[in-house]
């Protein structure tokens, strides 16, 4: 959040853009997106309109909301970064270490609240695993609709997962 625009652009350029189209493709957007579905409630609701910075080339810090292309469906999706490259993630009773280009993306809503509202389970990294940086589309940072909720998106506390008794890191 403290980085300036030009620095982010240079970073995207240096890391080889992080997208199939490169930096030129990224400037094309999307800069504004509308949110469908409810897995980011209560922080982001269905129908909210967000501003996106599509020039990011690396996974932003934990707690940041990102737009990315979901593997499988290929749809654009919005989730929050819960783990960054190199982090250990508790998963299926064991520990998983994210590779250099991977992030762990989670929903804000808890499954009980979703079920009460008549929705299915949230679909995020718990369902499709780590997401590689080439699927990253941008960083959502500002909500400009509805009017009463205009402002910077609330950031979740960037609490890293406590490193578990996982296997020793492999050489990389």
């Amino acid at each position, binding site marked *: 959040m403290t980085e300036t625009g030009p620095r982010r652009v240079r970073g995207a350029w240096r890391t080889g853009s992080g997208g199939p189209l490169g930096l030129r493709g990224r400037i094309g957007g999307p800069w504004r*997106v509308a949110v469908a579905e*409810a897995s980011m409630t209560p922080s982001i609701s269905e129908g909210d309109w*967000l501003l996106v910075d599509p020039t990011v080339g690396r996974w932003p810090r934990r707690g940041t909301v990102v737009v990315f292309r979901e593997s499988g469906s290929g749809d654009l999706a919005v989730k929050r970064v819960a783990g960054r490259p190199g982090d250990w993630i508790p998963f299926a009773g064991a520990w998983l270490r994210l590779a250099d280009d991977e992030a762990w993306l989670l929903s804000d809503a808890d499954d009980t609240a979703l079920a009460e509202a008549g929705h299915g389970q949230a679909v995020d990294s718990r369902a499709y695993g780590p997401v590689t940086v080439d699927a990253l589309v941008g960083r959502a940072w500002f909500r400009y609709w509805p009017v009463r909720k205009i402002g910077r998106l609330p950031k979740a506390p960037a609490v890293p997962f406590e490193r578990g008794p996982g296997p020793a890191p492999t050489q990389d």
Partner: protein
Amino acid sequence: MIHRVLAPRTTVRAHCDLPCGVYDPEQARIEAESVYRIIEKYAANEDPTFRTRALVIKERQSDLVKHHLDVLWHDYFKPEHLAVVPNLHQLFWDANKQVSKVKASTSIDDAKKLLELIDEVDAAWKATGGNTKTRVAGRPG
């Protein structure tokens, strides 16, 4: 006017559903047909070993019917579908209750009633566009 200018052209999903999105009441119906047939076979055979086996199979397939009905109810149907099918909750309640009845019975009429209720679920699924939206390239004819 301003609203239209500001509106984003891109939609992002805060995704919350099974990723496959494939649903079809046929899955429940096939299991219910197994139950129907096994009751027919039960009635036609006096052998106690065969009859025991038939009851075990009936119990197992009945549980599968419940499972498939629940997946449709919890995952496929959404609150907005109630506008199209106002009796949706009553229908699933009746259908699941009927499965419980079939489990405790060897009457072919109970199994037939279950098939009819599943056909009503099928009609609700079609009325909400399920046959074109939830199967790959639509439901096979």
